[in-house]
């Protein structure tokens, strides 16, 4: 051990790894994993660091050059920016990389990596779609809708039977985003965001692609779904929604499988499954939006690289990842790892097996654009034109002021 390994206590030779972990729900799971790992590796101690506003904290730590040894983060657009900035380790030559499902690593690569590197490992994936209560659907004799018209017909039938189709929770601004991502994914399929980035400062109603041009239908469909919400959906919070859905107060929710754990903690007997937004005319074209819920990475310059890699290898052992994914109700990324037999997970299995998955489109939008509040406001005032021109305008401004780091010159 070099002098730089200041965390090594000289008497017992134990290395302390700081493990930055963003997911509050996973605190207990990681405590268990760490305990097992430490039992097998007595020369390493892992200290879990879990805070509420992890994204701000990790940026603050990076600003202060105090990057933790092992890091888990939600793989969103901001995460891609961090990876592109080259603050994470390059896993290209690590054997663990080859055990991971390639489609998952592709979603991560789309978010961003430092040129020619692989800066993060996908751990578990989520699925974003329409959660539905299987019992209510069975009682009402409803089938999973495969086209948009069938979807609306299901909503009308539920309303006619006195059942709230969706439980809305717009008091939490972000709860407007899952449906926007789910429906918008179809509009963004053919390289929409690549073209939008190429347009940059010229994005507008007359450019080749723009929100104003290509997202009218997305907004109309999202607004249509929100007209089937319960009274007072504007002020309700996410937790209220999960509780109400768990009690059977609504037949569906515009959320992903991340909500299932909380729903089941309120009512373990509820039968929840999920289906993708049936937007395309041909039901076979339906795709499921999935994101890497937990990505694992490590600091580029950690003095404990060997120990950190040992811990990461342990995390990706099939048994460990299966247990974690089952407990978190997520889809494990390691090839050959089995999904738990939970109905919600089994209902999305075919989409993963057939590769009919796509990433979250909001990850393609620069984080300095206030996308979430803009969509929330749209769901309040239903003014699609104003919303889409705001998005185009913000896109133009950010493109104009983003000056790439050129590195050696200047």
């Amino acid at each position, binding site marked *: 051990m070099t002098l730089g390994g200041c965390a090594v206590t000289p008497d017992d030779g134990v290395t302390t790894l700081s493990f930055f972990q963003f997911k509050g729900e996973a605190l207990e799971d990681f405590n268990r994993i760490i305990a097992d790992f430490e039992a097998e590796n007595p020369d390493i101690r892992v200290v879990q660091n879990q805070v509420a506003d992890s994204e701000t904290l990790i940026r603050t730590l990076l600003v202060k050059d105090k990057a933790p040894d092992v890091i888990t983060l939600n793989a969103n657009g901001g995460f891609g920016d961090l990876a592109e900035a080259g603050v994470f380790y390059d896993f290209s030559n690590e054997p663990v990389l080859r055990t991971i499902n390639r489609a998952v690593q592709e979603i991560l690569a789309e978010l961003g990596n430092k040129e020619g590197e692989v800066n993060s490992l996908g751990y578990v994936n989520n699925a974003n779609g329409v959660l539905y209560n299987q019992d209510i659907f069975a009682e009402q004799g409803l089938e999973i809708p495969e086209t948009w018209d069938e979807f609306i017909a299901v909503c009308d039938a539920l309303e006619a039977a006195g059942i709230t189709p969706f439980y809305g929770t717009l008091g939490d601004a972000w709860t407007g985003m899952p449906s926007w991502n789910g429906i918008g994914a179809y509009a963004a399929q053919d390289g929409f965001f690549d073209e939008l980035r190429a347009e940059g400062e010229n994005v507008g109603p007359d450019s080749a692609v723009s929100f104003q041009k290509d997202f009218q239908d997305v907004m109309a469909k999202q607004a249509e779904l929100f007209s089937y919400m319960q009274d007072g959906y504007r002020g309700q919070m996410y937790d209220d929604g999960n509780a109400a859905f768990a009690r059977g107060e609504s037949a569906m929710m515009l959320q992903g499988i991340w909500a299932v754990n909380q729903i089941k903690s309120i009512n373990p007997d509820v039968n929840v499954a999920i289906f993708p937004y049936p937007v395309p005319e041909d039901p076979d074209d339906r795709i499921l939006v999935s994101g890497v819920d937990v990505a694992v990475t490590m600091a580029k310059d950690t003095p404990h690289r060997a120990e950190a890699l040992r811990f990461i290898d342990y995390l990706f052992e099939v048994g460990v990842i299966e247990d974690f994914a089952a407990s978190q109700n997520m889809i494990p990324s390691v090839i050959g790892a089995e999904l738990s037999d939970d109905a919600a997970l089994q209902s999305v299995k075919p989409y993963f097996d057939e590769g009919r998955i796509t990433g979250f489109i909001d990850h393609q939008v620069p984080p300095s654009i206030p996308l979430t509040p803009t969509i929330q*406001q749209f769901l309040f005032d239903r003014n699609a034109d104003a919303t889409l021109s705001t998005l185009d305008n913000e896109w133009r401004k950010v493109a104009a002021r983003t000056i790439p780091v050129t590195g050696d010159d200047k």
Partner: protein
Amino acid sequence: MSTLTEAVRTSTSGARNRRRAGRVRTSGSRALPAYYWMVWPAVIAFAAFHTIPVLVGIFFSFTNYAGYGDWSFVGLANYINLVKDDLVLAAYGFSFLFAIVATILTNVISLAIALGLNAKIRARNFWRGVYFVPYVLAILVIGYVFQFLFSNSLPKILSDIPLFRDNILTNPDWAWTAIVGLAVWQACAFSIIIYLSGLQTIPPELYEAASLDGASPWRQFGAITFPLISAFFTINVVLSLKSFLQVFDPIVALTNGGPGTSTESVTLLVFRGGFSGGEFAYQTANAVIFFIVITIVSLVQFRVLQRREADI
């Protein structure tokens, strides 16, 4: 380390000086060495935790630094883009509207309450304590209580008024008034204390003389009370406007800048864009401009209000 040894050296030599200078102390025009080493730590701490970070921030506002990773110089580009950014202009508009309304309300309400608390009312100290409580409580804790009030209680209590029934916090046109309510409620406590201490400097004889002359309470307020506490009024207005311009916590607790970006203040925008948005340098430039704006506003206020003080 150097500062420590310096401090030690200063203190020992100071002690020696004092012994030697014992007799000449009264004739010397220099202050005691003890006063210097009372001042130095503060100067060093202020420079280390305030001045240097400000200078570093100004430096980075001329780069495209994202807060991490590589960066290069971009000249005045950040400042030029700021002026063209309607989101930034909207945040300034919101901050000023909010600060002006909240400053007026805070000062009117706290002056009224201070007058009441200064009068010979029963259990006066108890009431003074009660009115100071909001200042002691953490704003975020109170903020979430208010948030519950606005989103769960008021919609039920005032279900006949559409504005409150639909949760005022989700109304882009009126959400700011709810934030004003919370901010004023909390800020009053501090202003009341300053006004109270001002009111206690007024000799009671003046009021006795005035009431012998038959002056009404309103006339007494206009001719005696207000002129005599005008210095306290100045400091209160300047401090209130400054801190309301920098409003942050009440917004985070109530609306988080929403709905849309209708309640996004400059400080919230700087924080969000700089940290979550990955535009550290750009928002630092914004912070530099905001610092200059606040300084100018405060100086102008001082001048105008102090001139008015002097006229009396």
